[in-house]
């Protein structure tokens, strides 16, 4: 019987969303559309329309050593062209943001190739070849893994994920990279490291509370689904905790 990943335990909607995001066979719902040029502007790694700077010559022009592993693993488009390695970093609010650092890393590892994610408590960075990065960023921003108000694209100065929201529902950002306009649309006025953009980049309207509660991947006893309500998840986590604590004593399952 072929191995079928289960992705994670749990019976709650949060657990279901986690599995949904991680499962590469499940297509993520597209919620908004952002142009390629807009993505390049927010990332701030190169000017829109300019050529991709390279770190090494394209693989086709290089003499590749006779290596079985290189024959087995096909390079990504960015690696093939010799692009530089660049990054995108997200900060996700604890108030029902649709994704969370650990969740993002799991999801990206299942869905994308040639990436190097870094997971921290309040932010998650993913590094890869520039061409691939733009493709992956588009997917991360356009689908249900993003919310204009509760997810920030922040290369530096990320503080805000655990703070109370502002009156208008935006997550705190010291550099105010994204602002909620009078028309209800969130626009990025600075790139991810805080340099002002020549033109504002619209990323759509913030999702409403009902949608967020139904699509979040974080447990929150005050504004969302309480962790304690998901007994299956707790049972699983406690089992793992117990087994790894006893590991040195050669545990045997009953």
């Amino acid at each position: 019987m072929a191995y079928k990943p289960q992705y994670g335990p749990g019976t709650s909607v949060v657990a279901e969303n986690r599995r949904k995001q991680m499962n590469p066979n499940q297509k993520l719902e597209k919620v908004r559309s952002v142009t390629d040029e807009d993505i390049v502007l927010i990332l701030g790694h190169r000017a829109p329309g300019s050529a991709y700077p390279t770190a090494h010559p394209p693989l086709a022009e290089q003499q590749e050593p006779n290596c079985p592993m290189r024959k087995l693993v096909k390079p990504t488009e960015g690696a093939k062209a010799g692009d530089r390695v660049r990054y995108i970093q997200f900060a996700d609010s604890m108030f029902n943001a649709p994704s969370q650092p650990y969740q993002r890393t799991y999801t990206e590892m299942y869905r994308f190739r040639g990436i190097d994610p870094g997971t921290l408590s309040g932010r998650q960075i993913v590094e890869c070849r520039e061409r691939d990065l733009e493709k992956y960023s588009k997917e991360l921003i356009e689908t249900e893994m993003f919310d204009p108000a509760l997810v920030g694209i922040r290369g530096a100065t990320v503080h805000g994920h655990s703070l109370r929201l502002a009156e208008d529902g935006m997550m705190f950002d010291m550099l105010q990279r994204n602002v909620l306009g009078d028309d209800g649309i969130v626009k990025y006025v600075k790139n991810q490291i805080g340099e002002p953009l020549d033109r504002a980049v619209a990323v759509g309207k913030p999702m409403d509370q009902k949608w967020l509660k139904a699509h979040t991947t974080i447990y929150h006893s005050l504004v969302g689904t309480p962790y304690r309500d998901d007994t299956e998840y707790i049972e699983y986590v406690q089992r793992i905790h117990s087994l790894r604590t006893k590991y040195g004593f050669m545990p045997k399952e009953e």
Partner: protein
Amino acid sequence: MTNAAFPQVRIVPIRMLKPATAERLLNMLAGIAGIRRMMIHGPGLPKKVPYGPARGSPNPHSDRKAIRVADAEIALRVQVGTVILEVEDASAIEEIRSLCDDFFVEFPYLLQEGRFMKTAPTLVDYAKYGPDADTSLVGLTDPRNGEKPVVIRTEQ
């Protein structure tokens, strides 16, 4: 500095306040006679990008602006998260509570009683203000940035 004889309260709105709302709230509080000292607390909004590749470049932010409270102008340098107050007696707390109950209608708030202000000058306070510093002003501002507290005079 904290005098144990005076009670302290903290107003914690469930959302962080915009300058316009903070201005309305502080003006409302300025009308209460029994408030001795007041402190605005929250995450900072620096004038320059503090770190990262864009470090040192200007940081325009719509929430970092001056607000007018009674006769004084206060240059906000934080997003208003909590307001800490030291009052004369318990009757002022009840007045604050009744005003805040009417003020926070769109989102809830907490009014907590406790000790929220500095109780003794720190080493940095001593280094900045010296041994003869006015103890009623110590702890109201960040000693590292040289700003002084604002005195609000209300009509008696």
